[in-house]
Each structure stands twice: as C-alpha cells, then as structure tokens.
C-alpha cells in the first residue's frame, strides 16, 4: 500500500524532500482509514483527500487517493467532488502532486503514515490541529471526518472518529 502511495515520487521530489530517513526521534502520525465495503450495483473506490488544518492557519494537503494514472490526467476531473478539500486546499494545487497523489484504495483498513518535518506535512509548530479525511465516490456519496489533536502529542495518544456512509472508523496514533 505504501508502495502505491509513493509510486509517483520523482527524482526531483526525492531531492526536494531531502533525506528519506527521519531524524532520530521524529514524531510519526499513523492514520488508519476504514473504507466501507458497500453493496451497490456499481461500485467505484472513493476519491479520498487527507489534509491538515492548523488552528487559524492554511490547510496542507497530505495525501490524495484518486485515479492518478488515467490517460491525459483525466482522473483529475472529479477531484473537485471532494468539495471541502477542493476549497480548502486542492484547487490551488497542481496534479499529479509529488508525494501526495496516490492510487485509490480498496475497501478495508487503509494505513498511511506521516512523519513531522518530512514531505507534505512539514514542520509542526506546537498548537491545535485537525486532520481531515474526506471521501467522495463516483455514483455514490461524500463524507468527511475530522480528527482534532494537539501538537506535540502525548505518548500513546490516539484520536478516532467514524463516518456513517462513505467512511468507516478513522483513527490517528502517534509514535516516535
């Protein structure tokens, strides 16, 4: 799964993000997004956007799962349907976005990790944050789940929430 997320990292992006190994003791955020298995006649994996809202600050997109590998970049046509993310951050971005664009994911628990100070998440100043997960499905619905947390996190802290239709349980945990 991590492989598909990183698959479109280019040489330039590798250079820009610097060393791929995290500095010793760097704080890592593990996110689990449960994509529900739905009994529908026509099922498409949802587009999912994951972003971080610092209290009073600018939203940062961390990851977008979409049909990034379609001919002529056609999969970007429906990015705007992930509508709160599109307004908060997506509409100002170029796609594919290095280190952010990834393939859509199958139903089940999907994991992704972000390490503070590395890649799209960048450095996190102490303060309040909300991690937002929004899913929009072709010929289906849309749902958004918000996970507020304080930075730096307390050891062993977890944050969880759940959607009702397009997202199942979504949880965050933190590790060094």
């Amino acid at each position, binding site marked *: 799964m991590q492989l598909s997320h990183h698959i479109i990292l280019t040489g330039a992006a590798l250079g820009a993000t610097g060393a791929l190994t995290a500095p010793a003791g760097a704080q890592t955020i593990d996110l689990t997004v449960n994509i529900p298995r739905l009994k529908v006649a026509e099922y498409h994996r949802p587009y999912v956007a994951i972003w971080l809202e610092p209290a009073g600050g600018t939203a940062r997109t961390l990851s977008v799962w979409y049909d990034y590998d379609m001919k002529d970049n*056609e999969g*970007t046509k*429906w990015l*705007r349907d992930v*509508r709160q993310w599109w307004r908060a951050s997506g509409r100002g971005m170029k796609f594919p976005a290095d280190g952010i664009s990834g393939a859509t994911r199958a139903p089940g628990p999907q994991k992704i990790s972000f390490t503070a100070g590395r890649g799209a998440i960048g450095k996190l100043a102490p303060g309040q944050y909300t991690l937002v997960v929004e899913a929009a499905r072709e010929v289906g619905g849309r749902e958004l789940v918000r996970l507020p947390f304080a930075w730096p996190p307390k050891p062993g802290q977890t944050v969880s929430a759940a959607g009702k239709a397009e997202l199942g349980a979504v949880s965050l945990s933190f590790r060094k």
Partner: protein
Amino acid sequence: MKKLLVRTIAAVALSASLATPALAHRQWMLPSATTFSGDDVWVTVDAAVSNDLFYFEHRPLRLDNVKAWAPDGSEVPLEHQSTAQYRSTFDVHLVQKGTYRIGSANDMLMGSYVLNGKTERLPRGTTKETLAKAIPAGATNVQTSESTNRNELYVTVGEPTAAIFKPASKGIELVPVTHPNDLVAGEAATFQFLLDGKPAADLPVTVIPGGIRYRDQLNQMDLKTGADGKVSITWPAAGMYWVNVTTPRPARGNAEEGKASAPTAMPARRASYVTTLEVMAP
C-alpha cells in the same frame, strides 16, 4: 368578431411597443458547473428566457451578443452553438486555469421626439452613435432613455481569479468582495455593484433559488445595495440562484395602459444585470 380581432391586434401592437419587454419573463444562463478541476475542461451552458427558473419552456436566449473571456482577459470562442425552440446551448473550452466570464451586454436607446405636433418614437436599434441621424430636422422635445442589459456567468478552473472582473464602467457590473465561485450554503457573500463604473447605491437586488417548479413559494430574497453599492447575501441552501439587479422601474400601477410607458415617465439611464450563481453544500 372582426372588430374584436382588430382590437386585439392593436392591443398586441401596443404592448409590443412598451418599453419594458418581457417584464414577466426572466432571462438566464445555466452552466453545467461553476467549479472545475482537471486538465481538459469544458463548460456547457443553457440559455433561455422563461418565467420559472431554470426551466426552458418559453424562448431561447439569442446568442448573438454572448461572448466569453479567459482568465487572462482574452476573448475565447463559444463552441457548438445552437438555438432551438426553447433554449440555446453552447460550450466553452476552459483551457486556462482561473476564472472565466461568459455573457452579454446589450445597449439600447429608446426615446421620442415631436415633429409637426405629433409624437414619434425613435426607431428600434437606435444607438447613441446613430441618434443624431434618427432625429429629423425640426424635431422638438427629444426624450431619450439609454439602457444596458448585462447577463453574465462566472466559472472557475482551479483557484478563483479576479482579473475578468475589471469593470468596463458601462451598465451594472459585479465586483467581487466574495468571489462568485466560492459560495457555500449558510455563509454570507458580499458583492459590490457598479453602475457605469461608480458604486450603485440603493439598487434592488433580487435573489431566487432555482427549482421553482417543485415548491409552492418563490422564496425570493429582496435586497438592496448600500451606499457603497455592496450587498450581502446569506445562502439558505446549496443550489443554483438567479440574481438580478436593476435600476428602479417607474411605478406602473395606476397609469393607464400605454401611458405608463410614455418616454416622459422613463428615467434617462436604465440598466439591468443578471447572473446565475452556484452555491455549494458545506
């Protein structure tokens, strides 16, 4: 019977000559969407004149004067144009990122003069430029009323931009305080309206949500621009809204048929503005 028919024709001719055509009908353009992502983006637009919004069931909107401008200000073509019984349609290929403007601004000059004791109307299609030629020698008591009717849409690929809102300083124009492609239900949006380039104070602003056919009430919001030409609109729900701003019309209620439209009752400058705005769900 014949007499009745003649009278009917006369009445029709009279009402056709009234200075406020299609008062009861609303003209509108409806875009397929106003917010776009992607690299090869097209918007398709329906354009019509009808009572109810947004149903094409009366007349097509003529596309002769409709144009489109890209975010960099350059004019871009209307493609796949067609005018059918009840509606016109066209597409615009949105090649650039940013906000496009699509619309028309029609100028009309109406008026009258007195020649040999008889009041004559200025011919249809008279403009400021042809006015001198349209008035014969010896005419007196020349009255004119100039009107500019603007009908515009805004659509955005990616991040909204503001370059295409540079005012032409003619008729009523919208200047965004809130960008018209950044509207969300439950939030207030503020727009400034200009009349001939200056803030248009005290103009009536009418806001009607689409979908009229499926409800009992019009749910019309009647607002007014402030001294600075600004108006704030809080969107009650997501959907497409028809927004109309006009210079106030003279009272028509108690005047006799025909007399109400006499040029003497007409203000010298009239203007109207129509747009369709899309409000997203939060």
